[in-house]
């Protein structure tokens, strides 16, 4: 079967843009992607759009044009972007369409995400007692992981330091000033062991990707960026997830537990026919510094505990063995839920085209990997090849 290609990309800068709705940030991204591909809105046959808190994506047709095209809304938590991309890919693979759009945008209020128990099949008391707080879960997960696999506080700090350093060169990033390791480690604690620099913030932004069949992509004469795999998976038994009033007891609790990420990753590598060693650049969900650490292992790039050495040796830096989160990731870009997963793919296309400027990974990368994770145990992975 021929590949599905990404032929156009667009992004509205992440962060805070007062006076511009989430939807209009999505529209901005779509127009940029159309320009990038040399297309007009009327050429787009279908769209899948994701937004968690900024309205129904299909209402974008008001702004972009009433062409009568198919537009399906996707609501899938942090996997919304990945799910939109998966769906768009399948619409082309099936032969139904030749060219379409995956778009995501969001605009969240300041402060922590404000989830309600009923949205997650949980009793009201769970929220009343103060447990509907994502940061609690992330902090609990890394506390146990650090204890089990010998990860230091300093290594958490190095992840955040790298994020802000890379973001200096990413025009779409939110926090583009370097922050010293000392400042990161000594910052105000949000949820132990994490300081405020080690957590990302809810934010705003929009991303659009135009997908086309291989045949259509050749006609357009654009760089061929092939979507070799796009997977979205849910959690396995015994996993430890966001908003968990309990975790299963297991016979041997000394090793890592299964996760949605492990499944999505293994299946994506299987589909693409390559392995972790073949990946040249990766964007891994880093809603907090420890997430990047744990996701390095959950996605098969290293063994649990090896991250301590990887970070100390700079192996995930732009010029390292496996550059990770080259645009500063969620830590520096913030997290507009509907757009965040697509930002990773946008960044990977930039890297594969060699357009990264000051953040370009050297050596003309040929393969790029992206991964998101979210409540209540969903994950989406993509693998791109040039």
């Amino acid at each position, binding site marked *: 079967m021929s590949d599905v290609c990404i032929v156009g990309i667009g992004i509205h800068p992440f962060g805070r843009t007062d006076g511009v709705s989430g939807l209009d940030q999505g529209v901005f991204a779509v127009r940029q992607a159309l320009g990038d591909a040399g297309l007009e809105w009327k050429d787009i046959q279908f769209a899948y759009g994701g937004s968690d808190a900024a309205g129904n994506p299909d209402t974008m047709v008001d702004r972009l044009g009433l062409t009568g095209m198919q537009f399906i809304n996707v609501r899938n938590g942090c996997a919304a972007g990945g799910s939109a991309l998966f769906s768009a890919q399948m619409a082309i693979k099936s032969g139904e369409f030749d060219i379409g759009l995956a778009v995501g945008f969001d605009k969240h209020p300041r402060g922590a995400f404000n989830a309600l128990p009923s949205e997650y099949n949980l009793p009201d*008391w769970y929220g*009343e*007692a*103060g447990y509907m707080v994502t940061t609690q879960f992330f902090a609990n997960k890394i506390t146990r992981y650090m*204890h089990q696999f010998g990860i230091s506080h300093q290594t958490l700090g190095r992840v955040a330091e790298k994020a802000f350093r890379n973001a200096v060169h990413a025009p779409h990033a939110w926090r583009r000033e370097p922050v010293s390791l000392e400042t990161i480690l000594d910052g105000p604690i949000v*949820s132990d062991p994490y300081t405020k620099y080690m957590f990302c913030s809810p934010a705003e932004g929009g991303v659009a990707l135009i997908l086309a069949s291989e045949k259509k992509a050749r006609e357009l004469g654009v760089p061929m960026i092939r979507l070799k795999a796009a997977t979205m998976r849910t959690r396995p038994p015994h996993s430890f997830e966001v908003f968990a009033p309990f975790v299963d007891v297991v016979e041997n609790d000394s090793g890592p537990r299964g996760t949605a990420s492990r499944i999505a990753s293994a299946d994506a590598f299987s589909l693409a026919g390559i392995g972790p060693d073949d990946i040249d650049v990766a964007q891994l969900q880093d809603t907090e510094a420890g997430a990047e650490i744990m996701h390095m292992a959950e996605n098969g790039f290293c063994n649990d505990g090896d991250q301590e050495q990887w970070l100390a040796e700079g192996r995930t830096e732009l010029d390292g063995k496996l550059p990770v989160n080259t645009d500063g990731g969620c830590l520096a870009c913030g997290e507009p839920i509907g757009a965040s997963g697509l930002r990773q793919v946008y960044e990977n296309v930039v890297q594969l085209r060699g357009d990264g400027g000051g953040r370009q990974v050297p050596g003309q990368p040929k393969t790029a990997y992206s991964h998101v994770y979210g409540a209540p145990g969903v994950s989406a992975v993509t693998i791109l090849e040039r």
Partner: protein
Amino acid sequence: MRAIAEGLFTDDKPPRLVGGRDKTSGRIVFPCPPGSDFDPVALGSEGTLWSFTIQRFRPKSPPYAGPEDFQPWAVGYVELPGETIVESRIVNVDFDALSIGMPLELTFIPLDPAASEPVMIYAFQPKGAAA
């Protein structure tokens, strides 16, 4: 004592937590889900700390129903051997003294100590700690 939710604790003195045993697989979950797939089961009152963190900012209301005047609290997961691992406040302990594996026992605390008729939530404390 006014519990934060019905069916969360047993009527024993002192109460115990109520989990649910899957009628088919025997798996124990917490809390006990509504419906007929699970039998309510009183969980053990002693366990060990599985992981933890400190909640340093006031969670958003709604849904949080705790006092406006916020003091940080510890929250973690407590392994009840052979049963399940429950999420819980960890109380009557210095934050610096928290460590994975420490023995804990069930206790109950008011969600808002200043309330005239406070609702009670469950918590765990170091074994033998003064309440």
